[in-house]
Each structure stands twice: as structure tokens, then as C-alpha cells.
């Protein structure tokens, strides 16, 4: 607990707060008169301001204060919410995010411009500057001694409200020398007495070095609704009256015992009924479940994951030793630990899973902005938001998805006019969906736009030399061309596309996650791009193989089948590396050659056929050792450029095995095949 940095907690919380504000604002665009949403947004702004000021984010607090003031007018019904206002606050919200991320950076005049927009939107004057940032100055005590005669009575209900008169008297005693006299004359007769009410008032003579304000400080919480008179005994002028106390003139001390206690009057308070009734929190910002969750920084989970990974490795070494031992006790302990570490690993995996809702929610804003930018009417539908995926996967998918959604909207969807002309409804629909299938999650981006124009793709590919003119291609091969580097079907690079991320980058990112992309596109009806991504990156099921003297892991999800490469076939295939597999020729790579092992091949070599969706390639290995659950360790920066391997793992005996990068190997196999074809 003590190691938690409140500033870090604040940043996390501010991010959530901003997300809630954004979600509220986006909902508000559709329902401008929804009071609950207005309240929710206001509350978000208010919290952000309050916490921001507490943790030293002063620029943020001051800026948010203005937004809050503007929004407060909406809340109070002085102005109504308009789409201009929502847009202005949305923009302001982005600025707040920047102020959270870089509180000290010079953000120039952005803040002023945004506030001006905001003011224009609510039609108000410049809001008063935030007066919340200056901590109270420490008071210096004057050395001079003063004497006061203090007389006070509290409202009858003050004890019930938690004010303890004895505490107040103690505080006065702390200020200096005190004589206290209780005035009990106002206590009613027994049959009229309400025992919980306070009927006693007090006379206190105080001699102190403190000044008058110290006395006010004692009564600070009750000053507004109590009777307090303070007279300076030796001073030239007497009778300083408490601010709210105009009705009750300070009674002379001699008459004090006879003075009736005035009834507790709280005229400046609104009646209790004015307090808003309990409200249901809007679903978008509901935090009702927050209490059941513990927020943990991602890097701590990664750390824990690392430890668990090491434990799994140590455990598998222990298993190996135990299985070679005859000590029954050792073997039973080893089995117990194997079970425990397995369970721990499973639990760990679940901890890292987060619902894709966190990813999808970002797109509401993107679609909102793109709709404004392009003038298209777009409806965003999200499905399967509760599907859970490893947090790291989600983070890495964010950019590719942004690109795909942009593409759908920019290239896929038609303008409202075009849509109506082709008999479609005016609003285009972009559907983001996620579902789990076995060890993979499938995330798809679907639009009901015009579909991919095959002729244009072909023309572009031919003109850029990707394919030869008239080269026969299957439909899926043709569509895959859009993933080629530098490929774009847009006639001109618009504002939306061409932002540095191309489809080739999308494909690379997905493949780095050991995933794959499928495209389906029907002309005139729309396109769907599906990303198939493994659920987690940390542990995979692998096939452990031996090539020469080294051991390697092939991700099991990519393995289609294993077969023996007979000596005869091996010899026959020399030079042209194909094997026939049920009437189709599959290119294969000899890993022994690839890794230059320099050893003699085993007599019974094996071929492991791996695939990435449609493409298949065989890998020739010396021996298949077996199924192996693998904790993936990333390789050092030095090995970043080694494309053949995607990572490394540590085996039970402590040695290292490299994990083969399936996507790269298949591409290499296909390339080899293509070369052989050209060579004839």
C-alpha cells in the first residue's frame, strides 16, 4: 500500500474520469436533454478538478474549472446542451488529457482558444478564474496577550450532528488560560426535555497569545448557525460579533445567566426538500462494481507473469529430476508442485484478461469525429464487448483497428447521397465485433459500404509491379494484395488515409501477435476484415522439435500435420523442395539447411506442415520431441532483426529453445516456391 504513488493513482483515475466524460458527452450528442448524462459529465469534470488540484496538476484544475463552470450552467438549466457545446467540451477534454499527461509542457494558447469556444457555446461571459489553488497561509501567532470574554450557545441539534461542545471547550483551553462557566438556565422542565438536544450555553474567559481569528477557528464549523459573542476585556472597543449573528446582540455578562437561549435558526439554509432525490447512475459511468475490483498497474502483472513463468520452468526441471529419482517422497512433492504451478499459471492468465470493451469504447469518439470530417452518416455497432483478451494484445491491436475503421469509413462507406441512389439507407453501419473461438479471439470490422473494387486493386497491383499483367489470381489472393507495402486504392491520399500506418503495417502487427487477417468483400454490399488473434501472448502450446543438435518450438496452433519424409522422397525432392500432400504440392524448407547445422540428417526426417490460413509450408526437422507448454521470453534488442524466430523459451533442463516465427517461415516458403516456378 505504502509503495503506491498517489500521483500515479491519480493519473490512472484521471484517464478513467476523462473516458467517462467522453462517453457521457458522446451519449449526450444523441440525447441532448438527458439530465442524467449532463449530471454525469458535470460530476466527472468536478472530480477531475478537485483531484487535479490535490495532486499538483494546477493547470488542469484551473482549465477544468472553466469547463465545469460552463457545464454547470447546463446542469442548472440556464442554457441547454447543444451539439456545439458538446463538441467544445469534447475538444476541451482532449486538452485535459494532454494536461494530465504533460502537466508542465507549454500548451500555448490552446487552452484559451478552447475556453473561448466553450464560452461562445454557452453564451456566457469569461468565467471567473479558479480560486482553488492557493493553500491557506500559516498564521503567525502574535506575542501580545489578550483577554476575551466569550459567550456561546449552539443549536439544539448540534450534538446529533456530531458537534461535541466539550471538544470546543478543550480547544479553547488549548489557546490559553480559561475559566469556563456553564449556563444551564435554558434547560426546560423534565417533561418538556428532549434529552438529545443541547440546552446549555457557556461563558468562557480566555487569556491567550493568539489573536481573535484563533477563536473563530475553534467555532469554524458552527459559526454560521450559533450564537457567539467575543468581547475583548482589556481592549478599548468591545463586542465583536460573529458574522452570521445579527439578531442576537451580545448580552452583557452580568445578564448572561438570565438570557434565554435563542432557538436554533438556520435561515440561510435551503429547506432539506431541495436536496435532489437519489438518482440511478447512468450506465455509462456506473461505478457500482468498482468496489469489487482492485486496480493493479500492468507492469506489476507483467512482473508476476515473469515470476510465474520462471516457476513453471523451475517446476519442469524439478519434474525431470524427480522422474529420474526413485525417491517416492520427492516424486510426490514434485507432482504436487506441478499441479500447483499449473493452477497458478491458469489463474495468472485470467488476471491479464480484459474485456475488449475497453478497446471498442475508443472507437465511438473516432467514428464521431470521422462522421463530422467526411460528412457521412455513420452508425457504429459493437458486439461481443465482454470477450476477454490479454491486455498486451489489446494495446497492440489499438492502432491496427483504428486504421481498419478509418479505411471502412473512408474507402468503404459511400456518401449519404450515393447510398440513397443505390437503394441503401442513408446511414452506413460499421460493426466492430469480437468473439472467442478456441484459443483465439476473432475481432472483425464490417461495413455495409461499396465493397472492395477488384478491378482497381488489380490495376494498381499491375501498375506497381506487384503482379504481372493478366496473372491469374484467386479472389482471396487478389484481396490479399491490399496488404502489400505501399499499396493504396484511394485515388488520392485523403486526410484520413495515408497517416503512416498502411495495411502492410496492420498485417505485420497482427502477425507479430501470431494472428492472421481474413478479408471478405462483396461488391456493393460491404467488406469484413477479421483478425484472428491468440488469446494470450505469454504462454503458448508448442511442438518441440530437434534440428541438428538444437531444439526449437513451433506454435502448435499453426501445425496442421506431421509426416515422415522418406529417404526416397527426400532424394527425389532435392533441388525442388515440394512434397505431394494429398494431391497438392506443398513447398518445404529444410531447417537443417536454414540453420546451417552442419550435421548429418537423421534417417527418419519428419515434415511438420504449418499454415497461416490459406498458405501451407512444410518444415523438415530431424526429430519431433513432443508437445510442450511454452512460457515465451522475448529476445534481446540485439536479436530484434532475426525474423525467423519470434521469441525464446527455457526448457526443463535449463537450456534455451527458440520459437519459430510461423508467418515469416511460410512467407519464405512461398517465396522459394515462386522462385522455383519462375525458374521453371
Amino acid at each position, binding site marked *: *500500500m505504502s509503495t*503506491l504513488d*498517489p*500521483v500515479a*493513482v*491519480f493519473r*490512472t*483515475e484521471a484517464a478513467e474520469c476523462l473516458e467517462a466524460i467522453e462517453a457521457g458527452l458522446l451519449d449526450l450528442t444523441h440525447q441532448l436533454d438527458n439530465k442524467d448524462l449532463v449530471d*454525469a459529465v458535470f*460530476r466527472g469534470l*468536478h*472530480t477531475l*478538478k*478537485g*483531484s487535479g*488540484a*490535490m*495532486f499538483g496538476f494546477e493547470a488542469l*484544475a484551473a482549465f477544468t474549472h472553466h469547463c*465545469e*463552470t460552463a457545464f454547470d450552467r447546463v446542469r442548472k438549466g440556464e442554457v441547454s446542451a447543444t451539439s456545439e457545446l458538446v463538441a467544445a467540451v469534447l475538444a476541451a477534454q482532449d486538452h485535459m488529457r494532454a494536461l494530465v499527461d504533460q502537466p508542465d509542457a507549454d500548451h500555448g494558447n490552446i487552452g484559451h482558444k478552447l475556453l473561448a469556444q466553450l464560452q461562445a457555446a454557452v453564451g456566457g461571459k469569461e468565467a471567473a478564474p479558479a*480560486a*482553488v*489553488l492557493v*493553500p*491557506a497561509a500559516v498564521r503567525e501567532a502574535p506575542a501580545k496577550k489578550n483577554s476575551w470574554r466569550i459567550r456561546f450557545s449552539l443549536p439544539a*441539534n448540534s*450534538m*446529533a*450532528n*456530531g*458537534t*461535541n461542545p*466539550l*471538544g470546543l471547550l*478543550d*480547544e479553547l483551553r488549548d489557546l490559553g488560560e480559561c475559566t469556563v462557566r456553564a449556563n444551564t438556565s435554558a434547560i426546560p422542565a423534565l417533561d418538556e426535555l428532549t434529552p438529545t438536544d443541547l440546552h446549555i450555553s457557556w461563558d468562557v474567559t480566555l487569556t491567550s497569545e493568539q489573536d481573535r481569528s484563533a477563536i473563530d477557528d475553534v467555532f*469554524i*464549523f458552527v459559526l*454560521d*448557525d450559533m450564537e457567539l459573542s467575543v468581547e475583548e476585556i482589556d481592549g478599548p472597543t468591545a463586542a465583536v460579533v460573529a458574522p452570521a449573528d445579527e439578531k442576537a446582540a451580545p448580552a452583557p455578562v452580568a445578564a448572561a445567566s438570565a438570557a434565554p437561549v435563542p432557538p436554533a435558526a*438556520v435561515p*440561510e*439554509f*435551503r429547506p*432539506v426538500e*431541495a*436536496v*435532489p*432525490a*437519489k438518482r*440511478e*447512475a447512468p450506465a455509462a*459511468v*456506473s*461505478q*457500482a462494481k*468498482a*468496489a469489487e475490483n482492485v*486496480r493493479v498497474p500492468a507492469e506489476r502483472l507483467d512482473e508476476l507473469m515473469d515470476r510465474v513463468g520462471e516457476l513453471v520452468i523451475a517446476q519442469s526441471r524439478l519434474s525431470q529430476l524427480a522422474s529420474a529419482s526413485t525417491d517416492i517422497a520427492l516424486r510426490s512433492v514434485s507432482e504436487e508442485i506441478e499441479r500447483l504451478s499449473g493452477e497458478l499459471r491458469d489463474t495468472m492468465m485470467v488476471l491479464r484478461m480484459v474485456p475488449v470493451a475497453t478497446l471498442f469504447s475508443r472507437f465511438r469518439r473516432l467514428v464521431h469525429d470521422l462522421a463530422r470530417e467526411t460528412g457521412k452518416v455513420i452508425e457504429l455497432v459493437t458486439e461481443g464487448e465482454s470477450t476477454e483478451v490479454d491486455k498486451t494484445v489489446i494495446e497492440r491491436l489499438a492502432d491496427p483497428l483504428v486504421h481498419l475503421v478509418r479505411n471502412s469509413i473512408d474507402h468503404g462507406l459511400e456518401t449519404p447521397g450515393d447510398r440513397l441512389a443505390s437503394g441503401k439507407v442513408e446511414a452506413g453501419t460499421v460493426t466492430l465485433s469480437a468473439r472467442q473461438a478456441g484459443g483465439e479471439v476473432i475481432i472483425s470490422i464490417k461495413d455495409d459500404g461499396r465493397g472492395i473494387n477488384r478491378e482497381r486493386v488489380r490495376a494498381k497491383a499491375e501498375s506497381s509491379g506487384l503482379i504481372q499483367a493478366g496473372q491469374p489470381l484467386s479472389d482471396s489472393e487478389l484481396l490479399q494484395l491490399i496488404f502489400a507495402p505501399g499499396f493504396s486504392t484511394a485515388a488520392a491520399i485523403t486526410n484520413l488515409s495515408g497517416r503512416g500506418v498502411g495495411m502492410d503495417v496492420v498485417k505485420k502487427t497482427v502477425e507479430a501477435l501470431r494472428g492472421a487477417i481474413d478479408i471478405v468483400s462483396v461488391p456493393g454490399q460491404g467488406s469484413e476484415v477479421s483478425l484472428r488473434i491468440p488469446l494470450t501472448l505469454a504462454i503458448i502450446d508448442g511442438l518441440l522439435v530437434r534440428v541438428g543438435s538444437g531444439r526449437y518450438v513451433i506454435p502448435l496452433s499453426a501445425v496442421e500435420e506431421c509426416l515422415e519424409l522418406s529417404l526416397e522422397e527426400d532424394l527425389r525432392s532435392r533441388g525442388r523442395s515440394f512434397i505431394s500432400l494429398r494431391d497438392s504440392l506443398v513447398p518445404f524448407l529444410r531447417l537443417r539447411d536454414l540453420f546451417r547445422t552442419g550435421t548429418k540428417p537423421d534417417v527418419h526426417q519428419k515434415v511438420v506442415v504449418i499454415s497461416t490460413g490459406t498458405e501451407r509450408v512444410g518444415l523438415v526437422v530431424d526429430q519431433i520431441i513432443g508437445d510442450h507448454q511454452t512460457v515465451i521470453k522475448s529476445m534481446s534488442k540485439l536479436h530484434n532483426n532475426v525474423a525467423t524466430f519470434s521469441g525464446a523459451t527455457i526448457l526443463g533442463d535449463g537450456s534455451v529453445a527458440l520459437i519459430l516465427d510461423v508467418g515469416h517461415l511460410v512467407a519464405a516458403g512461398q517465396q522459394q516456391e515462386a522462385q522455383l516456378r519462375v525458374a521453371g
Partner: protein
Amino acid sequence: MSASILTVDDSASIRLTTKVTLTNAGYRVTEAVNGAEGLATAKGSSFDLIVTDLNMPVMDGLTMIEELRKLPAQAGVPIIFLTTESDADLKARAKAAGATGWLTKPFDPESLVKIVKKVLGR
């Protein structure tokens, strides 16, 4: 035995600051994330002091104070609310609802402890 304090705030960072401050000052701290939870927690246990935020989802601090004051067992339990300068109106309403005192945000740990001591009568 040290006094036990219930803090009610929807902001995790403020809860953390409050908790660390009060724990270091020797108090026992229980947390709740909104008024509804605060109310339920207060009903199930007895606290020497409640510190609450006002603006919260589900149930705000104001409603929670009113509801607490309706419970005979909660009579006399001091309630301090956290407020910002701009909440003058809210402050009056919170006091009317039965709050004992307030602390203006942003606050420093020292002033929180000072006010807690003041209200608890040390």
C-alpha cells in the same frame, strides 16, 4: 484503541491520500466508493468519524448524510465532508443535512489530521 474512520470518496487517488494520511496519524480507516456503499458500511459497523465527498455517483454525499442522520445509531457521529471553494451552496446544504464540518479541497494532509483531531476531540 485508536478511532476508526470511514472515508467515502469515488476518487481512488483522494481515497488513497486520505487513507495514508489517517493511517499514519494512527487511525483505523475503512473505505467506501460512493454514498450507497458508505451508508451500507456505516450501518454494519460503528465508526467514530465519517469523512465523505459530496459529488459521487450512485448516491451523493449529501443524500448519504441525510440518510445517516435518520438512523438513531448514527446520531452524534461526526461527519466531515470534502468540498471545493465553488461548493458554497452545497456546503450550506450539507450542513443542513447534518454534517459536522468540512474540509476544502485541495487539502494538505496536515489540515486533514487537524480537522479530524478537532472533530474527534483528539
